[in-house]
C-alpha cells in the first residue's frame, strides 16, 4: 500500500526527507497530482512503490508587492489562486503557465504553482516575454539530504551565486522540493487583439509568422492551426473559418495595439485574406492554443516538440501525425496520434535535423514506460545531468525515473 505524507511546513518536510534519505526510501513529490501523467512514471529499480509526499499543505502567499512586480508563494498554492490574485491588480504571470488538465484528464485542472514551475512549461508568450524559468527570481527548497537551502532573491537583477531555482524549474521535482517560490510578475496588457490569416499551408504559414516576428511590431503570439483543429475552437471566427488559420497576437496599450494591427495588416495582406479577434475572443483562442485544447481529446498520443522555428512545418510533414498545432512561429509543434502505437518518437526525432527536443506529453502509462519520453541526450550531457541530480539528491529518493534515466538512482 502506498503511504501518503502531508507535511504542513518546511520543517516537517525536511524531517520527512531526512528520514527517507537515511532509509533510502523513494518519495514521489506531488502538488495536487494533476501532472502525474506528465514525464515518465515514477519507478524504482526492483520493486515497491514510492511513498507519496503531498505538498499541497505547504501553501499560501508569502508576500505580493504589485508596485515591485514581485510575488512570493508557497508551492502548494493553487495556480488559479495566484492568477486570480494577480488579475485583481492587473498583473499576470507573463510566461502563461499551461492548464495541463485538459490534455491529461480532459478537464481544467491547473494544479499548484509548485507543479507549474516544476514542469516549467511556457505558453505562447514565450517568444516575447521569455520562459518560465526567466520569471523565477528565487526559491527555498529542501534537497535530498533533508537540508533546507535557498538561492536567488526577490529582485530581478541578481547574479549572486548560481541560479539553482532556475535549474529546478522544469526538473519535475527530481532535484528538490520547493517550499517557497519568488516570481517576477508583469502588468497585464490593456488590450489584446489577434490578426488572423486564412487558408495558409504550413510552410507558407511559417513564412507569414516569420515576417511578423521579424517586424518591429512586438507581437506576443505566433501560431498556426490547421482547419480540422480550428473547427474545434469556441471562437466562431476561428471555428467557422472552415480553413486553416494563422494567428498573430498584439498586446499592449490601446493606441499602440491599433497602430500595430494596422501595420501588420499591411505587412501580411499579401499572404491571404485577413480577419481579427478582439480582446475577449483573443483571450479564449490563445488559452485554447496554450493548453493544446484544440487537439482532439481522443487522440491517444500527444507530443510537444521544440525546434528551430523554421523547421516547424517540416516536422509536421514528416511526423505522420493525425492532428497538430504550431506555436512560437513554428518553434513549438504539438502532434497528436489517434492510436497509441509505439515508434512515433523515433520518427519525430529523426526529422529534427536542426536540433531540438521532443517530449511525449499524453500517452497511456504502458507507452510512457516504453518510449523515450524525454529527448535522449548525448552521453556526456546525460552523465553530467546525472551528476547534477546526485549533487542535489545523492540517494536518488526524489521522483526516481521521472525525467528518464538521468533521474534514476545510480545513473551518475
Amino acid at each position, binding site marked *: 500500500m502506498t503511504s501518503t505524507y502531508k507535511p504542513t511546513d518546511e520543517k516537517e518536510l525536511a524531517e520527512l526527507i531526512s528520514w527517507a534519505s537515511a532509509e533510502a526510501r523513494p518519495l514521489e513529490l506531488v502538488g495536487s497530482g494533476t501532472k502525474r501523467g506528465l514525464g515518465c512514471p515514477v519507478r524504482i529499480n526492483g520493486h515497491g512503490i514510492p511513498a507519496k509526499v503531498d505538498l499541497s499543505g505547504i501553501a499560501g502567499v508569502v508576500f505580493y508587492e504589485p508596485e515591485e512586480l514581485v510575488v512570493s508563494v508557497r508551492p502548494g498554492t493553487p495556480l488559479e489562486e495566484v492568477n486570480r490574485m494577480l488579475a485583481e491588480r492587473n498583473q499576470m504571470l507573463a510566461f502563461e503557465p499551461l492548464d495541463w488538465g485538459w490534455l491529461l484528464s480532459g478537464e481544467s485542472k491547473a494544479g499548484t504553482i509548485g507543479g507549474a514551475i516544476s514542469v516549467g512549461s511556457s505558453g505562447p508568450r514565450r517568444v516575447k516575454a521569455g520562459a518560465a524559468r526567466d520569471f523565477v527570481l528565487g526559491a527555498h527548497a529542501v534537497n535530498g539530504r533533508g537540508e533546507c537551502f535557498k538561492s536567488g532573491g526577490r529582485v530581478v537583477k541578481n547574479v549572486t551565486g548560481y541560479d539553482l531555482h532556475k535549474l529546478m524549474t522544469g526538473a519535475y521535482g527530481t532535484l528538490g522540493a520547493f517550499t517557497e517560490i519568488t516570481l517576477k510578475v508583469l*502588468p497585464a496588457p490593456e488590450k489584446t487583439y489577434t490578426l488572423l490569416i486564412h487558408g495558409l499551408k504550413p510552410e507558407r504559414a511559417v513564412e507569414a509568422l516569420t515576417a511578423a516576428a521579424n517586424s518591429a511590431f512586438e507581437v506576443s503570439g505566433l501560431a498556426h492551426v490547421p482547419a480540422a483543429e480550428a473547427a474545434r475552437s469556441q471562437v466562431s471566427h476561428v471555428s467557422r473559418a472552415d480553413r486553416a488559420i494563422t494567428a498573430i497576437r498584439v498586446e499592449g496599450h490601446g493606441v499602440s495595439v491599433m497602430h*500595430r494591427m494596422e501595420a501588420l495588416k499591411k505587412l501580411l495582406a499579401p499572404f491571404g485574406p485577413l480577419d481579427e479577434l478582439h480582446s475577449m475572443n483573443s483571450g479564449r483562442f490563445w488559452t485554447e492554443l496554450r493548453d493544446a485544447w484544440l487537439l482532439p481529446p481522443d487522440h491517444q498520443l500527444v507530443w510537444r516538440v521544440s525546434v528551430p522555428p523554421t523547421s516547424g512545418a517540416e516536422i509536421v510533414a514528416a511526423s505522420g501525425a493525425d492532428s497538430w498545432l504550431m506555436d512560437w512561429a513554428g518553434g513549438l509543434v504539438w502532434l497528436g496520434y489517434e492510436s497509441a502505437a509505439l515508434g512515433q518518437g523515433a520518427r519525430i526525432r529523426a526529422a529534427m535535423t536542426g536540433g531540438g527536443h521532443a517530449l511525449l506529453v499524453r500517452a497511456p502509462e504502458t507507452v510512457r514506460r516504453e518510449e523515450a519520453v524525454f529527448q535522449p541526450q548525448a552521453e556526456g550531457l546525460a552523465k553530467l545531468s546525472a551528476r547534477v541530480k546526485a549533487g542535489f539528491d545523492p540517494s536518488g529518493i526524489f521522483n526516481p525515473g521521472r525525467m528518464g534515466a538521468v533521474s534514476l538512482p545510480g545513473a551518475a
Partner: protein
Amino acid sequence: MNVSMAEPIAPDLSALAARFRQVLPLECVVTDAVSRKPFETDAQTMHRQMPGIVVLPETVAQVAEVLKLCRDFGVPVVPRGAGTGLSGGATPVPGGVLLAMTKFNRILDVDYANRCVVAQPGVTNLGITKAVEDDGFYYAPDPSSQIACTIGGNVAQNSGGVHCLKYGLTVNNILGVELVTMDGEVLRIGGKHLDPEGYDLLSIITGSEGLLGVITEVTVRILPKPETVRALLVSFNSIEAGGACVADVIASGIIPAGMEMMDRITIDAVEEYCAPGYPADAAAILICELDGPAAEVDYLIGQVTAIATRNGAIGVRASQSEEERLLFWLGRKSAFPAAAKMKPDYYVLDGTIPRNKLAPVLARIGEMSRASGLTIANVFHVGDGNLHPLILYDANVPGEMEAAEHLGHDILRLCVSVGGVLTGEHGVGTEKRDLMPEMFTDLDMQQQQRLKCAFDPGQHLNPGKVFPTLHRCAELGAMHIHRGRTAFPELPRF
C-alpha cells in the same frame, strides 16, 4: 601581490608549458614575464596576480587539450575574455594557467529566419549587434563595456545593461552554448530552439563565472530594432521624489526600455567632463527611455510626463531628435570616466535592492560616505533597483584603498539587509567572495558547490572565486547515513 617583471616561470610549470607547445602553435603559449604581465588583472584592479602561463588556443580541440593537461598536472586554470570584468573573475590564480579566448573571434552563423546568431565567445558584445544592424536587428543586453567585453564573458557573468528592465539579462537572451569541461569533453546545450531538453543547464552556465566549463560557442537571440526610441530627461529636487516617480511609472503598467538615475555629485562630474547640458538645479535626474512603435512611444511619453509632474518633477524634457536622445545618454554613459577625473581611482559597487528601499538606502549611503570621508557618486539602474555607487579614492594615499574597500563592503551589507543582493550584474569573483555569507548560509553555498563538483570534481577551473570556503568534492558528496537512527517523522499519514 605585485610580482617582479623578471620573475621566471615557476619550475614546476615548465613541463606543462612543454606539453602545451605540443598541442598549440608556439606563439599561443606565453611564458615570458613581460608578455604575461597584461593578464595580471581584469578591470577590478585592486587585486593583481601574475599568471604562471598564458595560453591562447585557436580551436575547440586545443581548448579541450589544454584543460585535460591542466587537470592531469593538477594546475588551476582561469578562463578570460576581454578582461573587463569588475569582480576579479578573470584574475589569475597563483601558479596557474590563464586561458584567454581572444582568438575565438568569429561570427559563425547569422540566421534571421530563426532570429539568432551563433558566435564564438571572443566576439565582442557590440560585434554581434554590428553584424546584424544593417538588416534591422540587434542583440539586446548592452553592458556599458560593450565595445570591449566578449559574449563569452557576458555569458559567464550573466551581464546586464541599461535595457535589462524590458529585455532582461544575458540569460534571457541566449539559446545555446558549446562548453568544454575540465575533462576535455565538448558538450552542446540548447541550440536554436526555445525549450530546454532535460535539466536547464544553460540557466546555470550563464552566470557561472568561469567555474563550470569553458564556453566555446554561444547562440544568442536577436531582436528586430524598435521602430522608434525616445528618452525623457526628468529632474527632481530630491532622490526620494525621483524614486517615487519611478515606482508610479511601474505601478501604472508601463515597463520602459530603461530607467537610469544620477545624483548631484555625478551630474557635476559629467557636466565638467562632457557638458551634456543637464539641469543645474537638480538633486537627481532620471533618464527614462521608451521604445516601440511610434504611436506607442508618443503615448507613453505623455503618460510618463504626467506621472513625473505629479511626483514634483522640476523639469521634464522629451527628446525631439536622435541627437537629443544621445545627448541625454552622453552624460550617463560617461559617468565612470567622469568619476575617474575626480580622483585617481574608483571602486564601483553593484548591489541591487527592492525599488521601494531606494530613498532610505541612498540616505544611509550618504551618511556612510560623510563618516568615512570618502566621496561617493551614485549612478544607477533605478528601474530594477541596481545601484552603482562609485567610491572615489587615491591608491597612493596609504590606507585609502583599504578604506574604500571596507566602505564598499558595508554598503553591500546594507543592500542585503533590506532584502537586496550583493551583485546585480558584475558577479562575485574574488571581490565579493567573502561577503557571500551575508546572503547565503553554509548549506546554501554547499548546494551551489555541489553543482560545481558535478562539472569539475577536481576543482581546477577558476578555484578561489565565488565561494569563500573551498570544500573538497568528496567531502561535499559524502552522505552521513544514520540508518535506523533518524526518527520516523511525526506526520499526518493517509
